[in-house]
């Protein structure tokens, strides 16, 4: 009976976490100011987000808190992440777009180029939102054609997740800020014992870009208006070669191991001592009973660098209720809204005052070193904001996978990337 009761506890806990977050937030909402001078309630709006079920619960809490704070009616549409862009594209093409949608900066340029987004800057200004209170990097990433198009909700970066128990077992000290690539490789090799592998790195440009930038290279010829990729150039190639050499050393999971489990799942099960990802992994890792983990900054090849991970709320240009949409966004990225999403664990708040508050930094819940995400902010760069970028990312990812997992020579892969990706960039 006791065993059965204890077995039920985790399920209650997982439901309780977002509920608690909602209650805390709703309770704290009593002091949230509403937009002044409005006599009528805002119009009903539709908000679409791509989210997994637990993240969806956080957004439901956010909407509920907004409505209790005097906001208007909101229909929240949460769809699976993999279906988010499909539904958005179809909805825009058919004239049935949501008033507000959440999107990553790497994917929003095509929507802006097609005139689907109403610039958020002026709309939010009317709601009294001050962009000076927010970190600059995501604001820059969501500025296109010299205007703030969408309002960033978070500012995550690439970090190293590390298993503290496996480090202790291997007799290794915790990673230090600014550790070198050589130290990183040596640590990965030292951790690779028996069935445990040292580090897992997904073959994608968002994982590789920080190392390329760190070694003084670049990923495209011009960040603002890219016309070709530059991964084949000496400094970028050297960084990629360093990663390929690490893969070749046997300190990373084999192709078969990766086919069986993704790197995050291998980390959860103790088969992997380190892996690279953004803040998005935190809720899942927190739920793993017995997993003792923390985060560390990326290793440095030359100068410190990391890559921005950020999502923002956009207003559809076809929306008939753009002011109501802006009011919702102002709340969602405001003190209360960002506190709710920060308590969910998945986001690094883009609002400075929340990012430096216990809602995000509290060491009582892992990772204890959440400050690492904030320390990386001055080093953040972002991948090009251009309509062709999602396709370019796919091309680079597929080719890097050949180099990392199939043993295809790096130069052959880089030539293929130039052949496939460069025409996409020139197609603009």
């Amino acid at each position, binding site marked *: 009976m006791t065993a059965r009761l204890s077995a039920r506890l*985790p*399920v209650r806990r*997982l439901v309780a976490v977002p509920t608690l977050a909602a209650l805390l937030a709703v309770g704290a909402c009593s002091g949230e100011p509403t937009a002044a001078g409005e006599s009528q309630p805002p119009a009903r709006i539709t908000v679409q987000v791509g989210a997994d079920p637990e993240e969806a619960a956080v957004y439901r809490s956010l909407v509920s808190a907004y409505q209790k704070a005097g906001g208007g009616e909101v229909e929240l549409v*949460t769809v699976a992440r993999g279906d988010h862009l499909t539904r958005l594209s179809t909805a825009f093409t*058919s004239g*049935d777009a949501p008033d507000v949608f959440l999107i990553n900066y790497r994917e929003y340029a095509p929507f802006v180029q097609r005139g689907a987004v109403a610039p958020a800057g002026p709309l939010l200004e009317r709601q009294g939102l001050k962009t000076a209170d927010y970190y600059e990097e995501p604001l820059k990433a969501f500025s296109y054609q010299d205007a703030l198009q969408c309002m960033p909700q978070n500012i995550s970066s690439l970090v190293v997740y590390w298993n503290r128990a496996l480090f202790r077992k291997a007799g290794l000290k915790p990673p230090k800020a600014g550790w070198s690539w050589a130290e990183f490789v040596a640590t990965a090799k030292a951790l690779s014992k028996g069935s445990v592998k040292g580090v897992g790195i997904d073959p994608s440009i968002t994982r590789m870009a920080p190392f390329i930038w760190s070694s003084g290279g670049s990923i495209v010829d011009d960040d603002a208006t890219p016309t070709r990729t530059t991964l084949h150039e000496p400094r970028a190639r050297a960084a990629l070669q360093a990663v390929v050499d690490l893969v070749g050393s046997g300190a990373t999971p084999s192709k078969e191991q990766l086919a069986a489990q993704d790197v995050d*799942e291998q980390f*959860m099960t103790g088969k992997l001592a380190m892996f690279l990802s953004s803040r998005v992994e935190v809720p899942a890792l927190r*739920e793993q009973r017995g*997993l003792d983990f923390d985060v560390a900054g990326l290793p440095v090849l030359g100068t410190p660098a990391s890559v921005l991970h950020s999502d923002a709320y956009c207003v559809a240009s076809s929306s008939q209720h753009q002011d109501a949409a802006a009011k919702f966004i102002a709340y969602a990225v405001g003190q209360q809204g960002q506190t709710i999403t920060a308590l969910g664990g998945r986001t690094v708040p883009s609002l400075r005052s929340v990012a430096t508050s216990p809602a995000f930094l509290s060491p009582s819940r892992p990772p204890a070193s959440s400050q690492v995400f904030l320390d990386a902010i001055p080093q953040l760069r972002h991948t090009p904001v251009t309509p062709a970028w999602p396709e370019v990312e796919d091309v680079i990812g597929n080719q890097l996978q050949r180099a990392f997992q199939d043993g295809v020579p790096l130069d052959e892969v880089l030539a293929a990337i130039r052949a496939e990706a460069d025409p996409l960039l020139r197609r603009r």
Partner: protein
Amino acid sequence: MVLGSLQRPLQPPPDGLDLWPNPAEWSNYSTVPRFMPLTRLLLNSLLLVVVAVPITVVVTSMAGLAIVTARGRTRRLLVGLSVFMLLVPAAALWVPRVVLLRALGLADTPLTVALLALAGTTPFYVLLFALACSRIPGALLEAATLEGLSPYGVWRQIALPLVRPAVVAVAALSGLFYWSTFMDPLTLVSSPANWPVALGLRSLSEMEAALYPIYLAAAVVVTAPAVLAFAVGQRSFFASVERP
């Protein structure tokens, strides 16, 4: 799937599959409604199947008979048109469908997806019925017409009883289609309250690995009605496809 649904959540993903989880976590099933409005979505799907399947059978069987009774070039043209429509990628139809249904004011209801049944759901079912009807002796259909039966009467009293295996097959296939489709409601139906259960299940599919037992419990619940329907109707199904 059933064994996976009984695993304890919030545990590391298993390396293999236990023959029987110990302890079996039956409470995963009661947790599912906390992640999606299961009852409402199941009712939406049930309504969808109950409405769409009979319409599909009627429309496609009539169309199949029409192809068979057409003559010469018209017949070849209709068969060619059906095959051509079958070649059109489903993704190419998403936007036109949304535009059309919005213009008609029929988008965003629990039965919006059932409107596809008015177009036969897929030309494959039409071709299936055309094949089945082509085995009916032409003299029989002509005699029925000479006896004064209307085209409806020929379809209802002569053709339909003779193509019963095709009726059962199309009913089963379209029933499964409407029970499991999620792309059509994803693009056609705006409000989550009007979604069928398959789309709700789809949204759970991105659950974190630690919560997969709950996702699998939802999958069992969503699959069970289809399996149950087959178990109940299997005698009729096999009787219709067996040779006398």
